[in-house]
């Protein structure tokens, strides 16, 4: 069998995507500690500084939940259920621990379930607040310090200001590289397809940041050297949602005759479009990035100004992406039982439609079982905007 190290660029991505966790297992065999995380709240910098490998968990949209329902109610978001099902079936046996963030009720209210049934040597519920005012920043610093101390206790390694700075530089570099790769989608037609991009996003979320940086450089080089095709007629689509981590949906979009050119999803641009301030004290800089810069529906944003100003603060980045990536239509995919996204559907939809860009809102499960129905809706949408 070909070793991961013998592959390069997109070939390596293919390998990492198809056998998710393959590289993590190799690292584990070499004595590395693997700590799982599940959302854009990471926080990857702290894990990197702790000397562990941050490994983002994903489920499998092709697989039915067979064991998880015995532990977790079906009113929990389908992504969380699917990932938990995979975990309880032993899919992530190589994992030494987990940081579960306070993202939403589906995670918060099941944190005991994750902790008690996976029984990992390390587990921490990272209680990120939903508010962003000054007291919240102070509080966020405290809970970052608490996370750091639990990781130190577990690994026996001190996390120093220097190691945090180092990790921040590496992850900022990672984000800068990813944004360069995203830039290659601005071409018409884009130089990298939405499906390829999805595979990249997944592949790099399971490997150490240094390896990720090398891999992205290879991909950029490979993609840049491509000759663009001449088909400029297809509509350019942006995908918005939370935990979308499979090519099933990108293939459904691109298979219906569109280009998927941008995303605002949790494993995608949400991870890569906001840097940590390198000039500031690292814990404060991390608190500010995760609380104020990151654009996720679980942080409450209110400018104190008009409603329109609030909308700009919450969703302005979406309009910016639409403009920069020349987007013709938006697909907003929200999972059933997701309160954070569910409650903002009307606001997002009207905010985008106001600038003349149509939005297709789809409510779905984290599963390919409903893919045919979705595909029909996507096709109808594309026909409508053609």
């Amino acid at each position, binding site marked *: 069998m070909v070793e991961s190290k013998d592959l390069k660029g997109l070939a390596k991505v293919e390998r990492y995507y198809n056998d998710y966790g393959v590289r993590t297992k190799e690292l584990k065999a070499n004595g590395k500690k693997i700590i799982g995380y599940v959302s854009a709240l990471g926080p990857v910098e702290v894990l990197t500084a702790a000397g562990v490998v941050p490994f983002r968990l994903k489920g499998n949209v092709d697989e039915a939940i067979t064991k998880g329902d015995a532990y977790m109610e079906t*009113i929990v978001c389908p992504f969380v259920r699917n990932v938990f099902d995979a975990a309880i079936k032993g899919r992530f046996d190589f994992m030494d621990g987990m940081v579960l963030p306070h993202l939403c009720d589906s995670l918060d209210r099941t944190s005991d379930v994750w902790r*008690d049934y996976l029984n990992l040597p390390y587990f921490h519920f990272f*209680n990120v*607040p*939903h508010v962003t005012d000054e007291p*919240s920043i102070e509080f966020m610093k405290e809970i970052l310090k608490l996370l750091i101390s639990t990781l130190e206790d577990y690994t026996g390694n001190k996390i120093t200001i220097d190691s945090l700075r180092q990790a921040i530089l590496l992850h900022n570099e990672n984000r800068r590289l990813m944004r360069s790769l995203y830039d290659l989608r601005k071409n018409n037609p884009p130089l990298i397809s939405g499906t390829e991009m999805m595979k990249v996003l997944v592949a790099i979320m399971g490997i150490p940041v240094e390896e990720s940086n090398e891999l992205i450089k290879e991909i950029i080089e490979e993609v840049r050297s491509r000759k663009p095709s001449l088909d400029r007629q297809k509509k350019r689509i942006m995908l918005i949602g939370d935990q979308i981590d499979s090519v099933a949906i990108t293939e459904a979009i691109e298979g219906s005759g569109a280009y998927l050119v941008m995303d605002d999803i949790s494993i995608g641009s949400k991870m890569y479009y906001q840097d940590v301030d390198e000039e500031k004290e690292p814990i404060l800089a991390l608190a500010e990035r995760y609380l104020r810069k990151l654009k996720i529906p679980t942080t409450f944003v*209110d400018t104190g100004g008009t409603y329109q100003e609030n909308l700009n603060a919450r969703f302005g980045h979406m309009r910016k992406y639409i403009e920069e990536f020349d987007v013709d239509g938006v697909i907003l995919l929200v999972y059933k039982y997701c*309160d954070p996204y569910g409650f903002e559907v009307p*606001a997002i939809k*009207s905010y985008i439609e106001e600038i003349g860009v149509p939005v297709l809102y789809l409510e779905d499960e984290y599963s390919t079982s409903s893919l045919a129905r979705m595909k029909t809706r996507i096709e109808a949408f594309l026909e409508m905007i053609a």
Partner: protein
Amino acid sequence: MAEEKKGRALATKAAANIPKFVRGNLAATIKAKQEGKKVAYAYIADGQDEIMRAMDIVPAWGESFAGVCAAKRDAEKYLQKAESDNFSRSLCTYATCTIGFDMIREEMGVDVVPDAPWGGMARPDMILGSAQLLCDPRFKWPQATQHYLRDVPVFVGAMYYPPFDPKLNHHDQEKFYVKYCTEELRECVRFCEKHTGKKMDWDRLAEIVELSDKTWDIFIDAYELRKAIPTPMDTGDAMNTMVPLTFNLGTQEAYDFYKELYDELKEKIKKGEGVASPEKYRLIWAGGLPSWFALGDFQYFNSKGATFPVEVTYRGCEKIERLELPKTNDPLEHIAWRWVRYWTHWYDKARKRPGSLPKVERIIEYIEDYKCDGVVFHSAFSCRSWHAGIIHQAETLKKVYREIPILILEGDIVDISSYNEADTHNRIDAFIEAVDAYKQRMRR
């Protein structure tokens, strides 16, 4: 909580008074508009009640109004209205019910919606939400509401408590949590000052906070009388009698209500009056919000000789001395300590029993104190907050305590389409048989 379509016999006079309370709270919002007082949309267990009372802001409780709509089986029009603007049916139905109502009011361009159940809620002047461990809708609901009430300012504060972790000592964290909660309450005061144009009267707030402490105490004193056999009041009533604590905290009426309830229960005990005669089985309502449209099910339990002398749901307080609150002259800090300790005061016990959880310790404590023979949960599909994690609590209870019979009912708080009476009654019948067998086993 309200006069539900299907009549349910109320065992206490106090509970029979509740519809008046609920109606009064709704009417107060409408009256406030006429009197030029400010109305705030508010959400329960956010810790902001006393601030509102001290500043003469009239709270309009969405959860209460949605509960009334549900009890009157008149929520569907609002749920559908919200759905028409792409709010999923899987979201919290308290929220979608009131958002639907708001949408209709805005379309009509009125302050008061005609033919709304019990007059509905008045258009608010502000919205006070709170982010916390309790639920996402507590901050998403205000934000989603503002989409339709664009000129209405929104405040979302925070009221977190340290999450339980058997390996961490929460006492180390309490201080910075309380500091954070206190400062967020201060932000709330600032927001209210700005939007009422009035300054907070701190002495008045201190008095109100003291009154709330007394209300927490008398509430528990009254509820603990339910330990009597037969129990003089059960959960069917408690789903009503929770109203003053939940929606009127910080008012003299709330205190007086529980004083009267206390006296009434004393009297019943003296006369030996119970909810069911004979009382054959004592159950605990261990978690979950009820189906407001099917409160008659409690009566169905009663008809089988089963009563609920205790419940976790809406027992949103504790005897103050048991919380061992640090002394402070700052009423906001006192509120913060009260709430943080309310949630954490079962932690030490849970840490002592390996594999246990604070929520489970609370259930065990009640089972023992109230001599219960069975455990009932309700899983409402549209609220993850109280209902995700019930399976785990039930399993943990069996593991760390004993093989007590457990029933998990399924339905919703507002959405009646999830409910099937015949199925529910069949499940209750089977459960009662299991409880009976358990009692016999325990006797042997």
